[in-house]
């Protein structure tokens, strides 16, 4: 990563020449501008077995000594941009990670913005891991471009959702059948004054308030369990324990192409943190207060370390599903360069949608 675009409207941080919000390089000096980081994708997996130092790895990704399958780039991935960071993990029970995340920071004419997207591939659909990645990548591009230009964030969130939707439509290869590649969706954009959340499915966003008073779940699941609770038929615990409790009723994918996301925005009273997570985390800590207890105050100073701690917590509790947690500090301060670079892929921003 190189430095972000300048605060003064859009100027290259290297040479000061003006740049467009959608530019990934400065036209004048060719300096690379900030881009979104996306989990997994590409050959990011470890190149050696952790238990067998020096042992070769087969082309299929097995250790030539102990035979263990090495984690692929998607199995465990940590992304860090200082003000926000995320960790995604395969968990202990699934053989692959079908969650994905994307994070980015941007400087707009009015200040710093932080962007996060979490998608959880629907495991009964085709290629859920690729679907989640494609959706997160597409959405982050749109949000990054919009944030650089200080566009209307709620509208940009809907456009980002639409871009994710189109990415999965393209993956479905024209097939409108049930079981086309699909994923849940939750995005958050933090500016200096506001938090905007957009979602569909059962991946969640939480506001974590250090004073405790404002801590709450920002999203409401599109799931059978939530429907049962909303209709007063069951308690949340009963509903989630019911056989169809985890069935999602909203998702992005070619088989639900008319789906509309939910969008909310609010202006926090003071500093805090936004947590985006997949059900692999919240299954083990439903209540916002419980998650806040785990994530604060660490989320305010060490988003990466705290996200990693949340993953460890879910794995120790059983790790029954893939786990993803992204923590973003509010207000998003100046970015701190990552101390320990982790596997990530660079993504370029699109033209505005």
């Amino acid at each position, binding site marked *: 990563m190189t430095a972000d675009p300048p605060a003064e409207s859009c100027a290259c941080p290297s040479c000061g020449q003006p740049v467009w919000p959608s530019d990934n390089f400065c036209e004048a000096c060719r300096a690379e501008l900030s881009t979104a980081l996306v989990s997994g994708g590409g050959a990011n997996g470890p190149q050696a077995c952790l238990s067998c130092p020096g042992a070769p790895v*087969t082309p299929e990704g097995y250790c030539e000594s102990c035979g263990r399958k090495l984690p692929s780039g998607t199995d465990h991935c940590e992304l860090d941009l200082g003000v926000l960071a995320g960790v995604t993990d395969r968990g202990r029970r699934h053989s692959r990670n079908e969650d994905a995340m994307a994070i980015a920071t941007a400087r707009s004419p009015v200040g710093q913005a932080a962007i996060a997207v979490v998608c959880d591939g629907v495991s009964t659909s085709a290629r859920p891991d690729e679907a989640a990645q494609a959706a997160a990548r597409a959405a982050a591009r749109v949000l990054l471009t919009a944030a650089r230009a200080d566009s209307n964030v709620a509208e940009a969130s809907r456009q980002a959702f639409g871009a994710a939707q189109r990415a999965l439509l393209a993956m479905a290869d024209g097939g409108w059948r049930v079981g086309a590649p699909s994923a849940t969706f939750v995005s958050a954009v933090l500016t200096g004054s506001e938090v905007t959340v957009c979602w569909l499915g059962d991946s969640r966003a939480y506001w974590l308030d250090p004073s405790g008073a404002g801590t709450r779940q920002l999203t409401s699941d599109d799931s059978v369990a939530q429907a049962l609770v909303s209709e007063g038929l069951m308690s949340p615990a009963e509903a989630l324990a019911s056989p169809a409790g985890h069935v999602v009723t909203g998702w992005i994918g070619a088989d639900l192409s008319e789906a509309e996301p939910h969008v909310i925005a609010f202006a926090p009273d003071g500093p805090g943190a936004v947590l985006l997570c997949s059900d692999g985390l919240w299954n083990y800590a439903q209540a916002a207060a419980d998650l806040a207890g785990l994530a604060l105050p660490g989320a305010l100073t060490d988003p990466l370390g705290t996200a990693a701690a949340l993953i460890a917590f879910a794995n120790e509790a059983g790790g029954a599903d893939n786990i993803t947690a992204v923590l973003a500090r509010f207000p998003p301060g100046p970015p701190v360069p990552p101390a320990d670079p982790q596997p990530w892929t660079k993504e370029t921003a699109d033209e505005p949608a």
Partner: protein
Amino acid sequence: MSRPDFTVEVFQNEFLPDGGREVNAIVTVTAPDPDPTAAAASLGGGSSRAEIIIIDCLGSMDYPRAKIAQARAATAAAIDVIRDGVTFAVVAGTDVARPAFPLDGSLAVASPASRDAAKRVVADLRPAGGTAMGSWLRLAGQMFSFSPAALRHAILLTDGRNEHESPQQLTEALSGCEGAFSCDCRGVGTDWEVAELRRIATALLGSVDIVADPAGLAADFESMMRTAMGKQVADVALRVWTPQHAELRFVKQVAPTVDDLTTRRARSGPQAGDYPTGAWGGGESRDYHVCVQVTPAGVGQEMLAARVSLVAGSEVLGQGLVRAVWTDDEALSTRINANVAHYTGQAELAQAIQDGLEARKHGDEDLATAKLGRAVALAEQSGNEETAKLLAKVVDVLDAATGTVRLKKKVDDADEMALDTRSTKTVRTRK
């Protein structure tokens, strides 16, 4: 120039329960389709093949008189099928071995003239005393050793027991010949020992069968020689890699016949061993059952339990992967792969027949009835009709499904020997 690849398909249920250790897989290996130009190119033409026919000239071959005549006719039929350019010889076996054609112990190059000359010699073969198969094989081995041919194949025909040398002498001869050439064995009549010929055929990667009626010998020889002429790739080994701390429980060929290769492992790397499979004909397909015991990993983890490759020298001709994935989903881990189940049954069938016949020989009728009954049930379940027919000549089948049988009071020796020699023949589940 690289050879066309062998196809390697793996059939298994890769899912193991938490703590599960045993991984079973059926590996189907298929050689590339016959391609006359490729075969000739990769093997250097006709001179890349050498054939030796070893014919027993034991005295008993003279009685009934028809037997030696049929053996001569069979040898002549086989000689007729040897292609031009292939080098060949005929060895006459008694208590010693001597080259019958060419007389100097060399290999002749097949041509219309040399085939005729060989057939004239064979027509004049006279019965003489003695059977010493080890010495016959040793002579064949010496004659092959001067040949540059990659595909070296022999046919051994006998009608008697190996009476004129000790079992130890045969063992020594076999260890000298292993890997040097392959040998198909045929027993004529009922005075030969199934176990003896099976030992030779197993060690020398060939087939064994009974020719109860000498009249069938010519057709059998011709077919054996045609198969030999169809071989394309010599000295192929099955290489099995397993992870550290894993134990390879067994490696068995399970189709077309059951042949346990486990003890024939030759180390080929820190975690790999080679098992000889001999020469492969174009389009030839065989199935192997590999059973590995691995160190369990956690639920959700995946491991390469075995890598099965086909190798010829330093060349890898194809490979397949046997995997293990631990799951807490019982619906996945309790599924039994149909191919593994089928061949486990076929291997048990062969064993039950051999155990049953052994018990019968020793007069243990209860055990014989139980074992052969089990064999009848297994043959019925798996649709192995050929074996079921052979069994029905040794036992009276009261109920095939449950394996209820009665030993026949009088069994033709030839029928019992046919059941014994063919007990290892399996049927495939697919195709």
